């Protein structure tokens, strides 16, 4: 028990130190812009299909599940606004972050851990490249930039899924559906959602990079670090979401 608590604080401290190093080194040249763009493409491209399909299904399921209750109260006209707010404020960013934690976070940690085991990180260092800049800063920055983009994409696809069900079940046209959605959505819904997605992206990638960079125990460690990266970053997504809701409540009185 004591050992577990000690380990928790040690890992928390090390991740914080790793994050501080990111901010220290990210601002100083040289900048690995080409690698950053490559990582943006990889992270976006790798996740767009999964994020899109999951978002679409979430939109459909949410509409199908809530429709009977709203119909019972004669409030089915509230469906677009209710679904729109739920998706944009919460479901879109959180589902996107969880998918990215599983796909991008585990991918980053496994890749870096395997590079460490096979001495590729050392090879980079001896060729005069700062591996932290080349591998960590590019990946963390790319994930921080790409996650909000993916979250907005997931929101739109999810709303499209919901709109199709509304059309099929209630005869609501797509135009009317989206008019209703945007009538009720405010910047108070959208901005906190985008801002928290930046933090989700940062947390997922920094944990993935930290686990990969500090991996040990050879090839056995590669699988373990990927697994740990997913668990820690998923937990962090929920903690950050909780904090984000508390803070946005102060600013926007949700």
């Amino acid at each position: 028990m004591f050992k577990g608590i000690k380990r928790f604080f040690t890992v928390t401290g090390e991740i914080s130190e790793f994050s501080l190093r990111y901010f220290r080194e990210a601002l100083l040249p040289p900048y690995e812009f080409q690698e950053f763009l490559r990582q943006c493409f990889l992270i976006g491209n790798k996740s767009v299909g999964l994020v899109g399909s999951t978002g679409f299904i979430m939109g459909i399921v949410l509409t199908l599940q809530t429709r009977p209750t709203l119909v019972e109260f004669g409030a089915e006209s509230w469906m677009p606004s209710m679904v729109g707010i739920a998706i944009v404020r919460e479901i879109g960013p959180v589902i996107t972050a969880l998918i990215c934690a599983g796909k991008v976070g585990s991918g980053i940690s496994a890749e870096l851990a395997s590079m460490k085991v096979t001495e590729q990180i050392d090879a980079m260092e001896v060729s005069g490249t700062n591996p932290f800049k080349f591998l960590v800063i590019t990946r963390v920055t790319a994930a921080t930039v790409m996650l909000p983009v993916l979250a907005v994409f997931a929101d739109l696809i999810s709303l499209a899924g919901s709109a199709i069900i509304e059309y099929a079940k209630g005869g609501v046209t797509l135009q009317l559906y989206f008019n209703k959605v945007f009538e009720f959505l405010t910047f108070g819904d959208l901005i906190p959602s985008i801002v928290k997605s930046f933090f989700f992206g940062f947390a997922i990638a920094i944990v993935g990079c930290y686990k990969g960079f500090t991996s040990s125990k050879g090839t056995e460690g590669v699988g373990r670090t990927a697994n740990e990266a997913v668990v820690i970053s998923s937990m962090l997504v929920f903690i950050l979401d909780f904090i984000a809701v508390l803070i946005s409540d102060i600013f926007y009185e949700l």
Partner: protein
Amino acid sequence: MQAGRDDMAIEIKGLHKSFGSNHVLRGFDFQVQPGENVAVLGKSGSGKSVLIKCIIGLIQIDKGELNVLGRSVPELTRKEMDLVRRDVGFLFQGAALYDSMSVRENLEFPLRRHRDQASRGRSMQQRVEEALENVGLLHTINLMPSELSGGMKKRIALARTLILEPKIILYDEPTGGLDPITGREISYLIKEVQERYKAAAVVITHDLPCAKITSDRIVILSQGKNYIEGTYDELERSSDAVVQEFFKIL
């Protein structure tokens, strides 16, 4: 800043390095002259790899003097160390080719890092092709590392090491993990490139045939110190028990 002798490629005095209670190097002394090829022989876990990782600055030393090309490694900043590393090549035991890059990109990587050094009147394409030709693997230029055999990976890694035309080359177990025939081919290839590039070399190995082919002088590392040194023939004639342990297995 303390500087070493400019006429020495590598100069080490009283080098100490420990990992916790494990004292790996305990006052190691070592000198390599420009153009000289030295093999460091030792049992597994004797600290051979730690030694060359200290030389290239991947591991910080605890105590002692360590000068590479006249610069004191422990006192160098990261930027200064990168400049020293431009003149020091390192062949890793497992080749350490970047998995996500093709052979061409692997060779271009150090050139892109050191653009000033890279040109020398030739384009990057020419430099890459020339380096691959030197190791006889020009046809693999567009392949990925996963498509190469162990021996081919070592050759490509050697080409990547040579591409900046370093003044010192450090080889970490160059024949490790290879069959004896491929190991011998790699050893002769190292000898060939050493003669062509005239770089100083430190070959870390426990493979005596490799040490015989690639080096002018052999240093035996035992209990964290340079136990004995000499040419292959001198050591072969030695009656010392530690030295004979290496020759007995041949």
